[in-house]
């Protein structure tokens, strides 16, 4: 399973390096979201700095929808996904490979996005270890839930609208917990025993397990 996962992840990342969809389309979209939030909310100077963590994770959540959609779309061209089945690749490996690939892309996107938040909203950043670790598990959970749902919705002709409808409510705990964890990190209360971090870990573990168990049935379905 892990061997297949690494194979798929390496292939997907290579495709991203060539096609640069995340780089050239999803990342700029995330910045657009940041800027539009600023238009909508900048009533008084302090507001944006205060809600920065929430806006950051909302932008990540939106970007993740596109990211997982792209990860599954790679396999629909020329029926490549069917090819993977025909080659006898382990479905759990396909799932984990996709999660790894989207995770790497999304995590890099978050680093750029954080720079954007710092420049545009000017929050006081602190508690870097808690920020990094909570971002790690939040992203992992988002990718696991996202890849599962993206594959579920992929059979639909209206998958662009069905995927967010399915994914956003499911992923809402990540939005809440990620935001709260970062708020804690920015405040003086930063510690790795943060309950929000625990919730993010639970979410990531549950959705990784569910995806690994069920991805085969969804693919073969």
């Amino acid at each position, binding site marked *: 399973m892990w061997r*297949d996962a690494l*194979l798929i992840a390496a*292939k997907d990342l*290579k*495709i991203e390096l*060539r*096609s640069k969809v995340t780089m050239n389309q999803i990342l700029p979209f995330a910045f657009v979201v940041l800027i539009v939030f600023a238009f909508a909310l900048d009533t008084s100077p302090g507001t944006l700095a205060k809600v920065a963590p929430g806006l950051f994770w909302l932008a990540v959540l939106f970007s993740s929808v596109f990211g997982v959609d792209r990860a599954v779309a*790679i396999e629909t*061209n*020329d*029926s*490549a996904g*069917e*090819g*993977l*089945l*025909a*080659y*006898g*690749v382990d*479905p759990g490996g396909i799932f984990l490979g996709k999660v790894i690939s989207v995770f790497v892309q999304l995590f890099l996107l978050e680093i750029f996005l954080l720079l954007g938040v710092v420049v545009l909203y000017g929050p006081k950043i602190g508690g870097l270890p808690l920020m990094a670790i909570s971002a790690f598990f939040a992203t992992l959970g988002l990718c696991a839930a996202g890849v599962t749902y993206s594959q579920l919705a992929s059979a639909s002709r209206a998958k662009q609208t069905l995927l967010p409808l399915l994914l956003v409510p499911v992923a809402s705990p990540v939005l809440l917990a990620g935001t709260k964890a970062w708020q804690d990190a920015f405040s003086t209360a930063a510690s790795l025993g943060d309950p929000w971090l625990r919730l993010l870990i639970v979410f990531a573990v549950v959705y990784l397990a569910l995806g690994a168990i069920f991805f*085969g049935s969804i693919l*073969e379905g």
Partner: protein
Amino acid sequence: MGSLVSFKNVIVISGNFPILTGLDFEAGPGEIVLVKGRNGAGKTSLLRAVAGLARITRGSANVLGVDIAANPADVRHRIGLLGHEGFLYEDLTASENVRFVLKATRSDPSKAEAAMASLGLTGRLGDLKVAKMSAGQRKKVALAALLAREPELWLLDEPHASLDSWTRGVLDATLNAKVSRGATVLLVSHESHHGSLVPTRTVEVGGGKIISDTHATKPVPLDPLAVAEQGSGNVA
């Protein structure tokens, strides 16, 4: 010698439409079976079902000794399917695609070079992105992956379409060599000429089942080597 493929009364439903409607089919080692039939008869569906990619709704289906109605995943890596789609990634180069297939099927990746060279995919062509290739070149890439894999069962859907005559010759010669060593080929084709690839049997598919099954010369002899010799001797 048991049969490699054994389908009994197989029904396959896709999207509430019966694409196979009670199909009986057997194929043994060393056979080249030409699958004929008009559009929509179920030829491609037959290949997909044998490859373990179509869910068997009713009936029993055994391929290479594995019950594919229950465990299709157990046998897929031993079957080579060339469909209308090449299962290729547009953003990867020809050689990257071939190597990926070999790694995914747990075959020997070092065989990629030779297989690609045999089909003329050498030099700059091997490092060209598939997105920039013509239909014929894409087909060659998919074929190269298949040749390097050396599956026991070859399922070829219109393999000659959009190939030049030189490549057809290479393909036919390679397939004949494999068959003489006991491999089995199921060949879907609308064409009448198959070059030096001479079917030992012709089955006609219609309405999702087999409607005729004719042996080219004699019933298949037990020795696969003999089949190949007879086959090549029979070229008009």
